[in-house]
């Protein structure tokens, strides 16, 4: 098999268990510095125009902004979507500039994105997909290509029995039917089912930093409650107590289930205002124009 990963630091990374740290590792869990991003399809158009954001251990940050303000682009850029190019800036995580890493390496370093529009993988069952993902995640950066050999336990494969128990328990927590595991990834899923599958993956992969891109959109009250439960179950678990969250949303209601430490307002690819949870209610009441006017008034 060929690999098309080309980032320059990868060979160095692959060769060692301990990540090569380029930056001092401090308390900040995730540090986004002056991030500028263009889509490859339209390189002249800057979608993110300098994002600065620091999310510390255990914190929940919410990002709100109009349609098209650049929220998903930020999530994609953090995970390394091949359709976008970072023209300036860096993102430091565990002492590394993760922008140099392929998406799978970022994931194996503990990052996770719950997609706004999850992708279908026809013919691949949820169970096989998750088992492969879990094996990759558990092995971290130990092996450069991340390939697993399920028949070879010494190569880090999770035992089938252990996996079955884990997926069954996690699906029960999310009130997912057992038949879900045999279905093909996101194929023919309803909007709500797709969001629940994202939460199932998050709960099983136990990331250290999770971005939820409108996970609350299109969910009924019960599903919203179960998203809240899965986030909180993770936060209150031993592995998850330091997890950081970036919650992209249009609605303050998700923040009732997952209280945010800080709320950021994004307009045209910039964070123009940050504040406490009350900012979310303010937006709902007054709309984005009020923020825009206020920012315009103070910045001239």
């Amino acid at each position, binding site marked *: 098999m060929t690999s098309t990963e080309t980032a320059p630091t990868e060979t160095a990374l692959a060769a060692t268990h301990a990540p090569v740290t380029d930056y001092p590792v401090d308390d900040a869990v995730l540090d986004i510095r002056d991030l500028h991003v263009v889509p490859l399809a339209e390189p002249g158009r800057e979608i993110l125009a300098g994002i600065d954001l620091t999310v510390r251990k255990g914190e929940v940050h919410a990002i709100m902004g109009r349609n098209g303000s650049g929220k998903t682009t930020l999530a994609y850029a953090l995970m390394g979507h091949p359709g976008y190019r970072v023209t300036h800036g860096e993102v430091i995580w565990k002492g590394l500039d993760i922008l140099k890493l392929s998406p799978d390496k970022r994931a194996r370093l503990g990052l996770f994105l719950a997609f706004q529009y999850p992708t279908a993988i026809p013919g*691949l069952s949820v169970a096989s997909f998750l088992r492969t993902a879990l094996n990759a995640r558990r092995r971290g950066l130990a092996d450069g*290509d991340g390939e697993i050999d399920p028949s070879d336990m010494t190569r880090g494969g999770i035992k089938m029995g252990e996996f079955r128990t884990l997926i069954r328990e996690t699906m029960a927590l999310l009130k997912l039917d057992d038949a879900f595991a045999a279905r093909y990834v996101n194929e023919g899923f309803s909007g709500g089912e797709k969001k629940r599958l994202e939460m199932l993956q998050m709960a099983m992969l136990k990331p250290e930093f999770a971005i939820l891109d409108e996970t609350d959109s299109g969910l009924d009250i019960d599903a919203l409650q179960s998203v809240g439960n899965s986030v909180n179950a993770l936060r209150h678990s031993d592995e998850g107590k330091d997890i950081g969250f970036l919650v992209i949303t249009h609605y303050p209601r998700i923040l009732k289930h997952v209280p945010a430490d800080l709320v950021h307002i994004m307009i045209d690819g910039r964070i123009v205002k940050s504040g406490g949870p009350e900012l979310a209610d303010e937006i709902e009441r007054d709309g984005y124009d009020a923020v825009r006017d206020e920012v315009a008034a103070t910045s001239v």
Partner: protein
Amino acid sequence: MSSGTIAGVTAPAFTPTAATLETAIAFLAQHPGHGGAVDAATRREALARYEALPAPGARPSRGWKYDYANLPFEDLSWTSDRRSVATSPFAAAAPPDASGADHPALQTASAGGLVHLGATLLHLRPAQHDMPEAASRRDARVVILPLADAAGAAEPALMRALDTIVDWRGDKFTALATAFQNCGAFVYVPDGVQLDEPIQLVFAGAPDDEAVFPHVVVVVGNGARATVLERHVGAGDPFVCGIVEAHVGEGAQLDYAVVQQAGEAARLMFTRGARCDRDGQVRWHLAELGGALARTVLAARLDAPGGRAEASALFFNTGTQHVDLLSGVDHTVGPTTSDTVVRSAATDRGQGRYVGNIVIRPKAHGSDASLRDDALLLSKRAHIDSIPALEIAANDVKAFHGATVGSLDEDALFYAGTRGIARAEALRLITLGFFEPVIARFPSEALRDEVRSALDRKLDDATELGA
């Protein structure tokens, strides 16, 4: 068969000429029970047809290497033989000198069958006829015979079906297969008999390269149910050109699966046809995995009400493999139904063509036909043509057709990436998933797993993926 000899005489070099044919006819005259079910006059007529008929189809693409009008027949020999072997070919590692015949596939549980090494039928020692008897021991009523034996005994069920389903006069390669027929099998599952395990027909490549011309006839009686598994395994660079005829009785069901894992340089040209009586169902399953060139015609004729044909086929061309697949369902009366699903992929310099035909004739009212084919290209030099054709002459029918040709879904690769799955592994999962709709229809879990692992090995061997 010690290699290259017929009963002590050196086997003639094969060329599709009268000279080879006359040698073959002379040999068969002295060796009753060899060959197949064709008489000398028919062989000569068939060779004349072969010479007269045009080669099928133009070259599908620029990268296509083979010209059917000028296939080289170098270093091939023609033989027809029988040989005793000490152990059941299904028990252990089958014919010891056929590399590739130790394939785990040959140990699949089965309801019996026949094994050919090249055009040599392998018998279980000691008695000449132990093999078919042992093979059919699970149900004494089932007949599994070398075609020559069944023809020699003028088995009534064979005589009713032979040459009635595939018209060998219609195609250059079926004419060639008839002229030089040198092995074959007759499978008969009587009325009402339901077999749980497959009957296996194994064609293993002989170490020295042979021209092999099998003719298989399968008759499934009224209300009977059976699975036939045709396997191609082994080494060598054989040229295998054959005919399969399947007759499915009233309310009967036949699953006919082909798992083609012939040697790297093998060329295989097969025409397989089925006919279904009232409420009879045929399900073709085809996995073209090996060989250098495979041309397959998969046909079904539904000429009694309630008949149903399913065809599920896949190929994955790596290296310089070429596969040419033509499927056809002919709805002559209604109501009859058919469902065709094809998944093909190619990488490296792999070349493929799929031609899918559905004909619904004027009397086929109330029929329902569906044809779906999807192709996946994994490298820039790989090529797959997809040419579906629906011809509908009846009213009040349902016909569906859909086709796609695409490359790897980058969004799916990214999605898997965000779950920690490296590109190469994601590519493997996505590609295997692409074939799953066809694999899922194969008639047993063991067979499905076998096809999955074979595809997985092909992915490992491919040099360019998702370029």
